[in-house]
Each structure stands twice: as structure tokens, then as C-alpha cells.
């Protein structure tokens, strides 16, 4: 090999290694524009948060979200806890997982002075300090550790009591202590207060009518009457969960509990606050922080899947249509015409309704909906790509490629597609927010996949307000709304910046 040829080979190899230079050039030009920079930074942040979300989120987030039982310990429609730092009075959320404070066998003792006990019993205690004038939402005990096995051949029966001792000394049993088999109790999983019982207890003490008391029993529990108004009663509340076991030999029961063979040994006691977590809760008690966090990867998945597939289909169809012409072109163009004239929304609503009836995973449901969106939305790009292909096809260098024997495929992928790729990419970036917004819009219309997307959260808020809730639920409306907006703006910014970079390059072609 001559040295000359060696030089040529080296130069060519180097040139080949620089193939992606153009992509880098475009990127750096985009970076230099304010809009491009803003868009890119926002998108990088969105992606980083999505990765964080995917790593930290429980893997079964979707089923977790959709089972209300998982959220029963949370207050409902509660603003974020940090409003306390802004000076708002807040009743704190207190959750404690406890073992029994006391347990033993007795032969007729008045536990807490009001619960008569014979046999084996346990007391779990939670203290709750109400420092600011706000009302908690309720009291609940969940069973965390326990097992329902026969003791001495018999199924243990449990009678649960919840006793509250208020700062003013009033002591109340606030649930209807119903005997249940241990098995049933474990299956129920929670022991909650009974509002009617609270009302019945407190109405005579506050000297108010039962109907008034029944309207806000939990307020009565944590309140005092000032004039005709109920105001929060500040101070420390002692809340006892008392479990009385019967139907079995008490000593055997005690042994079984201590050795964790049967009975209950761990309980989560909760006072639902008036505010909750970083982002508050909705009407089910969902921790909105989790939902919003999940919304990041969900939005990007929806946006990318929708945009990438629409762009791919649109580009391939446009290239085929423009390159081959004839009846293929005619067929594709007529299809685009038809799709373009189908009213998108009714179709999506129809598909959404059908899909909701199907018993498939929420992800599958979501991707079917987005798939329909893609199916009707690739046409616009196809028309543009087709016209670009028509103009590129008539360039002499395409004919030159044919003259040297290049196959149709080679001409399409080597000579035509690289020219339109930057444009298709800019178009793709623009259609990311379109997919996200469409998904959100469908959520609002009630076409739900079942995933806690930002759109779904917003639509829950909308449903809540429409069914008579107050508009004051800013923490439930603003964050998902803003996140949808910011995400869209990020992609629109990047798209605009890309377009200004790509357009002159296209013209320079």
C-alpha cells in the first residue's frame, strides 16, 4: 500500500469517527440559546427526578396507590405539614408502632378506670400533644404484628376498646367494643373509633343536641365548647387501645402472645393530623408526594412513548410515501386525510371507555390510549416529511446515488433520512408535551388508566370540587398543574431552540 493511500485511509477513518459531529454541533448551538439552555436544564432535572423516583418508589406503587386500605391511616384532603412553619395552626399527624405498654391476667379489674376486665388483656398507649388550635381528623389503630392460631384448641375472642383521656380529665371509650374472633380482627386489620358513639357520649356532656354532635364528633372529641362554638382543646391526650382476650385459658393466652404463637403483639396507633407530609393528601388519603413523584417517570414515559412512536411512524410513512410515489403514496396520503378528519377526542373517549372496562394492567391501559393517540396523530409529520422527501429526491445527488447502483433502501437511509432527521427530531420534541397534555386531558374527562399520573391527580381534585368540595385545596391542584406546565414548557423551549437551529440547516441543504 502506498503511503499516499495510507494517508487517505487515515483521514477517512478519522472522518468516520466524527460522524456524530453534527448532532453535537446542533446540541451546542441549542445550548447557546437561552431558551434551549432553559429547556435542556429543565429536561435534565425532570429526568434526574424520574430516575430518583424509579429507584426510591415501592415497586408495586400502582396497586399500592389504588388500594384505599393503604391510605386509611392518613388524613384526607389535608394540606402539607409544612404550612405549620408558615404560622398556620396545625394538629400534627402522629403515628407510632408499639408493643403493649402493659399486659397480664386479671380477675376483674377496671383498666383505665372504665374498662372491666376478666382474663388476659393488653394495653397499648399513645400520647398526643395538641399545641395549636386545630382539630385532628381522627384516631385509628392498625394491627401490625399478630397471628390467629388456636389456643388450647379454641379460637381466641378479642374485645378491643379505645379509651381516650382528655386534658380536661374526661375519659371516654370511643368505639363500640364488639367481641370478634382473633382471626376476624386480624383480617379487618384496624380498629377505629365510632363517630356515633363519640357523639352519643359527648352530646350530654357538652349539653348539645345529638344531631349537632353527630355532625362533627371528632371535633367534639378534641374540642371544648366556647359559647356555641367548638374550639380545639389544647393539651396532652392519652389514648389507650385495650385488647381483652376471652374464650381461652388466660394463662395459655399470655404464653401464646409472649412467644408470638397467637394473639397480637404490635400495633400502629395513629392520630390523623390536620396536615400531612410534604405535599398533603387527597380525599382518599393518598400521600400526594408519592403520586407527584411517580408522575415524573410516568409523564416522561407517556411523552416519549407517544412522541417517539408518532415520529417514527410519521417519518417512515412520509419517506415511503414521498420516495415510492404512485399508489403507495396515494394510499398513505388518503389514510392521512381520513385520520386527519377523524375527530380525535370522541375516538379517544370511546377507546378510553372501552379500555376502562377491560381487566388489564393500568400500564397496558395507558399504552393503548397513547397508542390510539399516536395512530391518529402521525399524519401531520408524514405530510411534511413527504414534501421534504419529494424535494430531496429530485436532488441530483440522489440520482447520482441511483446511477452508482445504490438500492432504494440505501438511498432512503443514507441520503434522504439523514437530511430530515434533525427536523423530525425537533418535531418529536414538540410532540412530547402534546402526549402528556392529552393524557392529562383524558384524565380530566374521566378516561383513566388507573396510574397516579399528574393528570389523574388533577382530575381527582376536579371531581372532588365538583362533588361539593372546597376550592381551597391548592396543594392538590397547583403542584400537578404546575408540573404538567413546566414539563410542557421545557420541551416546547427545547423544540423552539432546536427548530431555530435546524431550520437554516435545512434551507442550506
Amino acid at each position: 500500500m502506498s503511503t499516499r493511500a495510507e494517508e487517505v485511509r487515515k483521514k477517512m477513518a478519522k472522518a468516520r469517527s466524527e460522524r456524530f459531529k453534527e448532532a453535537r454541533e446542533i446540541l451546542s448551538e441549542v445550548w447557546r440559546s437561552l431558551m434551549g439552555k432553559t429547556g435542556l436544564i429543565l429536561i435534565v432535572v425532570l429526568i434526574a427526578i424520574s430516575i430518583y423516583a424509579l429507584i426510591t418508589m415501592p415497586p408495586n406503587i400502582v396497586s399500592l396507590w389504588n388500594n384505599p386500605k393503604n391510605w386509611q391511616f392518613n388524613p384526607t384532603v389535608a394540606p402539607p405539614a409544612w404550612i405549620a412553619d408558615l404560622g398556620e395552626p396545625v394538629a400534627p399527624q402522629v403515628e407510632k408502632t408499639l408493643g403493649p405498654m402493659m399486659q397480664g391476667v386479671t380477675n376483674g379489674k377496671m383498666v383505665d378506670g372504665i374498662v372491666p376486665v376478666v382474663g388476659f388483656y393488653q394495653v397499648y398507649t399513645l400520647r398526643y400533644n395538641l399545641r395549636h388550635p386545630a382539630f385532628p381528623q381522627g384516631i385509628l389503630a392498625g394491627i401490625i404484628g399478630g397471628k390467629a392460631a388456636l389456643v388450647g384448641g379454641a379460637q381466641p375472642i378479642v374485645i378491643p376498646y379505645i379509651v381516650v383521656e382528655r386534658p380536661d380529665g374526661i375519659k371516654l371509650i370511643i368505639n363500640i367494643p364488639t367481641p370478634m374472633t382473633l382471626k376476624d380482627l386480624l383480617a379487618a386489620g384496624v380498629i377505629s373509633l365510632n363517630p356515633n358513639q363519640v357523639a352519643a357520649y359527648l352530646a350530654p356532656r357538652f349539653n348539645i343536641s345529638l344531631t349537632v354532635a353527630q355532625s362533627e364528633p371528632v371535633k367534639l372529641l378534641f374540642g371544648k365548647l366556647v359559647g356555641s362554638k367548638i374550639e380545639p382543646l389544647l393539651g396532652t391526650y392519652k389514648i389507650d387501645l385495650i385488647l381483652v382476650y376471652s374464650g381461652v385459658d388466660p394463662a395459655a393466652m399470655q404464653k401464646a402472645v409472649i412467644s408470638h404463637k397467637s394473639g397480637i403483639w404490635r400495633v400502629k396507633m395513629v392520630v390523623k393530623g390536620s396536615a400531612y407530609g410534604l405535599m398533603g393528601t387527597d380525599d382518599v388519603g393518598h400521600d400526594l408526594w408519592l403520586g407527584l413523584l411517580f408522575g415524573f417517570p410516568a409523564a416522561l414515559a407517556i411523552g416519549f412513548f407517544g412522541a417517539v412512536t408518532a415520529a417514527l411512524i410519521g417519518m417512515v410513512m412520509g419517506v415511503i410515501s414521498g420516495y415510492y410515489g404512485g399508489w403507495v403514496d396515494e394510499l398513505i396520503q388518503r389514510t392521512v386525510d381520513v385520520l386527519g378528519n377523524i375527530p380525535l377526542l370522541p375516538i379517544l373517549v370511546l377507546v378510553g371507555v372501552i379500555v376502562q372496562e377491560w381487566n388489564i394492567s393500568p400500564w397496558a391501559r395507558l399504552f393503548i390510549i397513547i397508542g390510539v393517540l399516536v395512530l391518529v396523530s402521525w399524519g401531520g409529520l408524514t405530510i411534511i416529511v413527504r414534501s421534504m422527501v419529494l424535494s430531496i429526491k429530485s436532488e441530483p445527488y440522489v440520482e447520482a446515488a441511483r446511477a452508482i447502483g445504490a438500492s432504494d433502501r440505501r438511498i432512503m437511509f443514507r441520503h434522504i433520512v439523514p437530511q430530515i432527521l434533525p427536523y423530525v427530531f425537533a418535531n418529536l420534541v414538540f410532540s412530547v408535551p402534546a402526549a402528556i397534555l392529552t393524557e392529562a386531558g383524558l384524565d380530566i374527562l374521566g378516561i383513566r388508566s388507573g396510574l397516579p399520573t399528574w393528570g389523574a391527580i388533577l382530575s381527582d381534585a376536579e371531581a372532588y370540587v365538583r362533588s361539593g368540595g372546597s376550592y381551597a385545596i391548592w396543594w392538590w391542584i397547583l403542584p400537578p398543574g404546575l408540573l404538567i406546565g413546566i414539563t410542557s414548557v421545557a420541551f416546547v423551549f427545547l423544540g423552539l431552540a432546536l427548530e431555530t437551529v435546524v431550520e437554516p440547516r435545512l434551507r442550506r441543504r
Partner: protein
Amino acid sequence: MSKENHVLSSNGVIRADELRVWFPVRRSFIDALRGKPQLYVHAVDGVSFEVHEAEIFCLVGESGCGKTTTGRALLRLVERDNIYGGHVYFRPSKEAFEEVSRLAPRAVVEEGVVDLYKVPDKAMKPLRRELQIVFQDPFGSLNPRMKIGDILEEPLIIHGIGSTPEERAEIIARALETVKLTPPEEFVDRYPHQLSGGQRQRVVIARALLLNPRFLVADEPVSMLDVSIRAEILEILFELKEKHGLAQLFITHDLALARHVCDRIAVMYLGRIVEMGPTDTVIAKPLHPYTRALMAAVPEPDPRNRLRIRNVPIKGEVTSAVFLPKGCRFRPRCVAYDQTPAIRDKCDNEEPPLVEAEPGHYVACWLHAARARQTG
């Protein structure tokens, strides 16, 4: 052109035979419904000629008369749908002929000759190597996104020439040297827009030469270049003829240039050849009124005469290739028609055939039809 029973003479490389290329004029759907007839641009309308080995054959004529289309049709670059008649016969190299006759035996016309428009697309590849083109526009005929090295490597990859990057580099280096782009390593990593027009045209020629073609169409290869570099490009084409015996179809609208470059010349008017013959003969003794008009339009080589206002014997403008007049298509512009009442009836009603007015010199005009024997 002694044909006997052969479609190609013994030294013929390619031959157009009564070739017709029409482009349908787009009519609206409504017009089609109303039954308006489909109109056609008769870009090439019954053209026959042959190009020999080691010959530069010129196609001369005004812009729009169908020169480029003829060249593209010879290389089978025109869609088959637009071929409304005729044949293109081509004599490929022995190896290519064997391959084609194996892949598409029906395209074989006689030993060594194929009918290009009977070759199916997938059997064209071996023939593509041997049929090359240099375009008029050196700016459009190189993909702006590819570097020169990649542009030149593409035909090698397509045809599997040179199995390693080293071998291909060797071939590319040699091709660049042939077109006098030296040193070659200076050029392979540049983009087309980093080259001058003349350099680009050399790259285009180098690309065509890499495949070692038997027939080259040079479509106005210098018309868009500075006068100063034209000679160098023409020099390369000359060399290809002299050293490699390459058959070339040289297309130009410039009769003066044709006189300088060509062995034989054909003058085209509205899709037909009106006069054809050895360059010297045609230039010295133009027979067709159109050729005479073209000759008169050529600037005088003698500067003393250059400022003389000359009388170019032609009327009007080129007429449409869609609505052709009955009879001779040159008639609306013909001065001889006005001056020769005796043949007017013929001119009005019959298309003049291309006849051999003197040995090797053909013309299509009723003025000469009488004293010539008609060619087949």
C-alpha cells in the same frame, strides 16, 4: 452505421432506437372526470443514435429540448412509466453481460447486447457500474452531508470493489489523482461545500470513474464552471477517451463548445434530432435551418468581426413540447419555410424523417429529403 442484422455496430457501445420519453402533464381530478385528454410533455420524441467506443458524441440544442432527458433515459434513470416507446441497446463488458444474461435472459437482444429497459431493477446492478453520469450542477450532485471520502467510497461498497478499507483507500487515492485532485488526502475529509465548483466537478468525475464505466454521460459538465477551469475538466474527458477508449455522450447547449469537444454531433429540437453527423461536416455545412440559425448565433472567433450585428435566421421562441404543430415541429420558427413555398405542403402535414443527405450526415428537413435516401 452499417447495421445489417445487428442492433449495435461492431464498435457501438450504446444505441437509442426510436426512443420516446413523455412526461404526463398533471391534470386536475375534475379535468380527468370531464374527460379532458391526458397531455404529455414530449421531452424525447423518437430519437435514434449510437455512441461508439472512444468517441465523444455531442447532443446540442436549446435548453428544454430534451438533452438531459435523453441522457438520463440512456442510463435508465428515467422511470419506466415515462418511456413511451423505443429501446436502449447497450453492450456491457463480458463479465457484466454474462451476469445479466444469467439474471435476466430476456433482456439479451443479441450476443453481447442487452435491451436496458428489459432488464428488471434487481438485475441492473452489474450494469450500473458501466453506465455513469456527470451532472451539470456540481453543487447539487454531491450529498452535502457526506465527506468526499465517504462519497467516493460509496460506489466501491455498493459494488464490493476493494474488500478492505486499505484497498478502497488505494483506489480512491488513485481516482483523485486521475482527476488531478492532489494530494488526495487533502480532499477526503472535506465536505463538498469546502470545495470550489471545479474541484467538486472533479470529485463527481472521480466517482464516475471509480467504477470503470464503459459509457459516460457528461451533462453540460462545464456550463456552471468558471471559464478558467473548463479546459482542465474537458482535458480529463479527452484523456478518458484517448487513454481508456471511454464512449461519452457530451450534452451542451453551446455549439462552439461542441465543435471543440466532439467527434460527432447531433442537434436536437423539441425532442427530436434534426441533424446529425461528424462535427466538422455539420459545422462546415449545416443543412437544417435550425442548425444554421444556431451556427449564426455562435460568437465569431475573430474579434474584428465580433461586433458586427449578424442576422440570425430564426423567428419567435421555442414552442411548447406539449402542443406540437402538425407536420414539422420547427415550422413556426422556420425561415426556409417562408422562403420555399414549394415544400410548404409537406412541412405543414408530415414530420420530416431523418435521412442521410450525404455519407454519415443526416438531416430531418423536407428541403433535403428529396435528394437523400431515407434511413431505416
